[in-house]
């Protein structure tokens, strides 16, 4: 469904990605793990059009979307939940969700998706009229994911959903990521520092190091791989 080939990205004269290739099959959860600065977020940002690529290609549902502007890529139902949550702090929970449905006009569908968002994250319903900026980090992350779902994505890219969040909420969020994948058939590309957690819910994994894919395997195999265990799982 999503295919990235030889992606190269530079920040000024510093090369961040040296030809990253990956493949995300429809209906799967694929995870990118790696240390800080390995290029995980950069890969997602390049796919979603937030930064320009130098070379390489991004193909989504058979269409070349390389270097298209971010707002056009969202319209193709490929949605990115950026790192650090980035909810609209001054808008309420309900308004944030409605903002997620910015490109849609079907009132009934929007209402149904909002109900679905409240089913998977009941906390959001409790805080429906609260300004998003006043919620806890975990709640904001829930909102960011729910808001992305409002745009009816077929493929969802999540950047560090566990970052700076209380462990109990991290569990809840990851359970729902699995549920979204199963119930809605959403393809998910996940970027995580918490490799154990991420590989635990994924089908397939890629290990990034200094802008290159150094390892690729099924998630179960990566979890057993001694190299991965030593470097990322704290063995």
């Amino acid at each position, binding site marked *: 469904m999503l295919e990235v080939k030889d992606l190269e990205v530079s920040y000024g004269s510093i090369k961040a990605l040296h030809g990253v290739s990956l493949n995300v099959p429809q209906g799967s959860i694929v995870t990118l793990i790696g240390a800080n600065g390995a290029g995980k977020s950069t890969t997602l940002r390049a796919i*979603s*059009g*937030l930064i320009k690529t130098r070379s390489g290609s991004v193909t989504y549902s058979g269409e070349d979307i390389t270097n298209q*502007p*971010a*707002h056009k890529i*969202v*319209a193709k139902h490929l*949605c*990115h*939940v*950026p790192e650090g949550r*980035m*909810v*609209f*702090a*001054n*808008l*309420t929970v*309900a*308004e944030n969700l*409605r*903002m*997620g449905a*910015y*490109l849609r006009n079907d009132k009934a569908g929007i209402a149904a998706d909002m109900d679905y968002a409240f089913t998977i994250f009941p906390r959001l319903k409790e805080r429906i*009229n609260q300004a998003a900026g006043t919620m806890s980090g975990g709640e904001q992350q829930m909102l*960011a994911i729910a*808001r*992305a779902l409002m*745009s009816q994505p077929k493929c969802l890219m999540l950047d560090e959903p566990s970052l700076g969040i209380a462990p109990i909420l991290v569990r809840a969020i990851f359970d729902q990521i699995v549920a979204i994948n199963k119930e809605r058939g959403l393809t998910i590309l996940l970027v995580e520092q918490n490799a154990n957690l991420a590989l635990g819910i994924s089908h397939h994994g890629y290990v990034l190091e200094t802008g290159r894919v150094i390892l690729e395997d099924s998630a179960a195999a990566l979890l057993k791989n001694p190299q991965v265990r030593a470097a990322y799982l704290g063995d």
Partner: protein
Amino acid sequence: MSSSPAFLNGAKRWLLVGIVLAAVVSMFSGQFNRYHLGVIVDIGINIILAVSLNLINGHTGQFSLGHAGFMAVGGYTAAKISLVVSPMLPPALQPLLFLGALIAGGLLAALAGFGVGVPSLRLKGDYLAIVTLGFGEIIRVIVQNMEAVGAASGLKGIPKYTTLGWTFGLAAVTIYFVTSLVNSTYGRGFIAVSDDEVAASSMGINPVRYKVTAFVTGAFFAGIAGGLYAHHKQFLSPTGFDFLKSIDIVVMVILGGMGRTAGVVVAAILLTLLPEVLRQFSEYRMIIYSLLIIILMMARPQGLFTWNRKKGAA
């Protein structure tokens, strides 16, 4: 959702209140002496300027210091049109001419707004402020050297078309337009862009279009305000549009609470009246004025009127 018609009602109510107020005040305009009348018109013009700048600086989160520049473009355009065309027209058609001149001024200012809006796509915060400041100064210097509009000695003999009715009618239209724009589904995008551009674009919102729209719309109404000003003072001089004028408007927006239309309107009224009330202190006037602004900012850094902070920004 159910809240949007209520918002529209709110905006329409503003329009109605404004127009009724304008009509009532106009009826009594014979009672006022020239000085009071002048101050009241100044208030209306400043309301238009502040509300339109609020769209750029408040709702969309840009930082423009060039509003006086847009005002100058609109003012000089409208004034020049009136000066050239009015001798050829019978008196009955003069209001029509005035409206046409105002709109032409607004459109030219909007074009300038487009020109400034485009660089703003690459710049943020302080840098954008400097660019818009530079733009305002460029306009002023161009006007200062343009013989067709009187150059440094100013443009004289502009017909006195601006009345209370015109001023407050157009102020009501400005408030109506800006509030209904921002509170529409489309307009939520302005607030989204000011909150977080990355998040906005990952919602499918095009930040570029919103920023340019904010600049173009804001500049249009600043141009209208400039036209009203020209036909109110009957004399335009480049020094009236220096960056201090822009800063005056920015202060109104900040004091009113960025993105709060009602607050910005009240701040525009207060800050127009304040220097007039302080006239009795003669040479100490501006010192007291500045001190009062500092005290107000320290006491209410979030803006004077933020209690009506409800859904989003109104």
